[in-house]
């Protein structure tokens, strides 16, 4: 237990100490909020869909979580290159616990990032439907964060250096984000796109955020949580499997 805690604490300390990383990773969501929020807002309401910022903010929260979480998972490559992973791998700690500690750490960091983005969107006119919803969304954020940290970990245990990073960003993270319904409603989508969106785990995360923050969703909160829970369990299990196989 204490070992998981110290692994978690390390992730958190590293995050809190890299101010530039925190600020840097807020730039992108901010840009989306401003450019899309103000840019598409009028069109969105003319189409009778209501306030776009209220619709967009949960999506952008999801975006900051998926980026931060996958990145936290991928950080293992850094640990590999800077050698710290050796120190962890020779320690008498089960690989599963190492994986859990790291994933909880990465998940916490991504959740904090998501909360910060949620607060920032308030400045741009985002108003959650209820305070209760805004609090209840935090554990769901954490679930989504854990899921994508685990995915990042799996990727990292398959790669030896950061050269594949760009590939992962362009062929995995970007599509997961853009096809998730973060930016557009899933209702009334062409069938093919809807199928793709339904296969994207992030869609369920953002849908759940939207239920809790904007009061309406596509799949429904029950389905969202169920899908997220099952997928997270699968990826955690897969993650610890791949983690065990890392050789240095």
């Amino acid at each position, binding site marked *: 237990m204490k070992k998981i805690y110290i692994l978690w604490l390390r992730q958190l300390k590293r995050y809190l100490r890299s101010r530039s990383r925190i600020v840097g990773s807020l730039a992108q969501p901010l840009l989306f909020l401003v450019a899309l929020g103000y840019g598409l807002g009028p069109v969105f309401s003319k189409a009778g869909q209501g306030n776009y910022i209220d619709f967009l903010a949960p999506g952008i929260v999801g975006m900051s979580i998926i980026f931060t979480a996958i990145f936290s998972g991928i950080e293992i490559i850094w640990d590999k290159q800077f050698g710290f992973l050796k120190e962890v791998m020779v*320690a008498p700690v089960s690989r599963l616990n190492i994986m859990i500690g790291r994933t909880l750490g990465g998940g916490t960091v991504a959740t904090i990032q998501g909360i910060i983005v949620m607060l920032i969107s308030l400045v741009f006119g985002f108003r959650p439907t209820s305070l209760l919803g805004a609090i209840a969304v935090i554990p769901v954020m954490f679930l989504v964060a854990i899921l994508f940290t685990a995915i990042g970990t799996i990727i990292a245990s398959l790669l030896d250096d950061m050269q594949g990073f760009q590939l992962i960003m362009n062929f995995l993270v970007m599509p997961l984000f853009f096809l998730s319904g973060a930016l557009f409603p899933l209702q009334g989508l062409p069938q093919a796109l809807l199928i793709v969106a339904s296969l994207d785990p992030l869609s369920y995360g953002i849908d759940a955020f939207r239920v809790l923050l904007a009061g309406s969703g596509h799949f429904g909160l029950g389905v969202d949580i169920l899908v997220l829970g099952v997928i997270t369990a699968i990826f955690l299990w897969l993650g610890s499997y791949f983690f065990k196989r890392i050789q*240095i």
Partner: protein
Amino acid sequence: MIEVKNLTKKFGDFFAVDDVSFHVKKGEIFAFLGPNGAGKSTTIKMLTTLLHPTSGGIRINQHDPVTEPDEVRRSFGIIFQDPSLDDELTAWENMEFHGVLYDVPDKLRGERIEQLLKFVELWDRKDNLVKEFSGGMKRRLEIARGLLHHPKIIFLDEPTLGLDPQTRNHMWTYLRDLNEKEGTTIFFTTHYMEEADKIAERIAIIDHGKIVATGTSAELKEQTKTESLEDAFLALTGKTIREEAAGPNDFMRMARRQWTKKR
């Protein structure tokens, strides 16, 4: 304490370690010498559960690193050849992290961290981030960390690389003391022959992945009819400089490999 039988590690077609057998007794101080790229670090990685052998058997404290990694991990401490600290943590936090992972009880952990950081003269820098440290200071911190949990076996892969003579001397005195008082088995590599000569009870010399000689320093000198361990070493391993000589450091080697691969 350490038993190795017909140990082999292949990277692709290349035999980094080739049919190596040796044993180290409990409480023994054992030196593992060899030119750059001989396979020393690769052997240590297999002994310490980081790499799986291609074939052959290993027993560390009666346990097999492949099938009983946790028992093996509880038996040893290691000081790696390349850096393995977290630069974003302070010296104290690096020690604390290690102590917790190795189940050193709270009170004892605090005492030992203080004692060891004082020993390597980093106590007044304990709250500094490791990235602000010089190379030698980092090395000292790694040594202090490796000793924190009082393991039964200590592996040291070129521990004195980049350390000044004072610190080297200081470190070996401490290790010998530990060896005498607690019966700690010590397995180390070094490129300083006088160090091996002075400290090791028994020596194995490895070259191109194969062990070419084993024995006490005196036996090796006698076998090669030479005056010093350095001459014995050269007689056994030849005088050609190894391809790896440019950087006795996996990190640089890795960087170079990637560089050449890209082009």
